């Protein structure tokens, strides 16, 4: 816990100073998680603000300060999921507006930029983002929380409020799909 229970209880009672302190304590961590979940740096702050906005208006529903962190994770996951769904709709709309030739030109320009990209980290980000394109938004978030954020199954159980076995099955299937995509991408690199 980055803050003590007393601070959370004060915020629950409507103390704005206490709430401000909670945001300051968790802001960086939440921004990091959202950065990795949505992979669009320009929208990270907007989504993070949405998380804290939801937290502000739902703090009174929190039964005990002990479950604060899973609660905050849950809000983060939901906000990221909502964002990804909206984003997918927007992308579908944008792509449907373009002609086939325009889409091909857009793809060529994107790959051209990638070729000139020298930063190793950017390549890693791109390859992971593309691999995670093989699974749904919900599975992408679940995999990210487990594999990248390093959350345990127990923690995920608290966030998703489903039993461990169901989570294991879902994680296994999502990971298998990503592994398959990973295998194909490696084959393309080394024919």
């Amino acid at each position, binding site marked *: 816990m980055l803050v003590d229970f007393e601070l959370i209880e004060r915020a629950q009672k409507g103390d704005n100073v206490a709430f401000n302190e909670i945001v300051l304590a968790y802001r960086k961590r939440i921004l990091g998680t959202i*950065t990795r979940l949505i992979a669009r740096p320009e929208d990270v702050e907007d989504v993070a603000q949405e998380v804290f906005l939801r937290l502000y208006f739902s703090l009174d529903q929190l039964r005990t300060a002990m479950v604060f962190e899973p609660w905050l994770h849950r809000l983060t996951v939901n906000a990221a999921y909502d964002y990804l769904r909206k984003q997918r709709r927007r992308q579908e709309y944008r792509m449907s507006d373009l002609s086939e030739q325009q889409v091909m030109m857009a793809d060529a320009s994107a790959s051209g930029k990638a070729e000139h990209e020298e930063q190793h980290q*950017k390549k890693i980000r791109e390859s992971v983002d593309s691999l995670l394109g093989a699974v749904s938004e919900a599975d992408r978030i679940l995999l990210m929380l487990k594999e990248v954020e390093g959350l345990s199954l127990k923690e995920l159980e608290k966030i998703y409020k489903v039993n461990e076995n169901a989570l294991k099955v879902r994680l296994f299937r999502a990971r298998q799909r990503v*592994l398959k995509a990973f295998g194909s991408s490696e084959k393309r690199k080394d024919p």
Partner: protein
Amino acid sequence: MEPMRGNDEARQSPSQRLDALFRAYRDACPDPEASANFMPNLWQRIEARQTYMFSLRRMANAFVTAALALSLGLGVYMSIPRSTTYSSESYIEALAEANPLETPEILGPVHLEISDPGR
């Protein structure tokens, strides 16, 4: 060293290589610092939402008050005793009055006119 690392990577299973890629991804995406506008924008959004919720609650209250006043008004209106213009006689009495016994069209014998078109 590089070729050796390449050999090590080649010896790993795809699952291990994927784990390594996830770890590299975690390092490639460090937690970013918030911009200077993060907190002011957040409080602005909170206040905007509060204002919206407050006006929504006020509208709902006004609606409930108006509905209560209307029901009360209707109740009062219905409870006021009013002079009735209609008579207290029963339907049968009213019918009898409208069609008195001496009315010939009702009480007169029925005249059947039998005509024989053949004769």
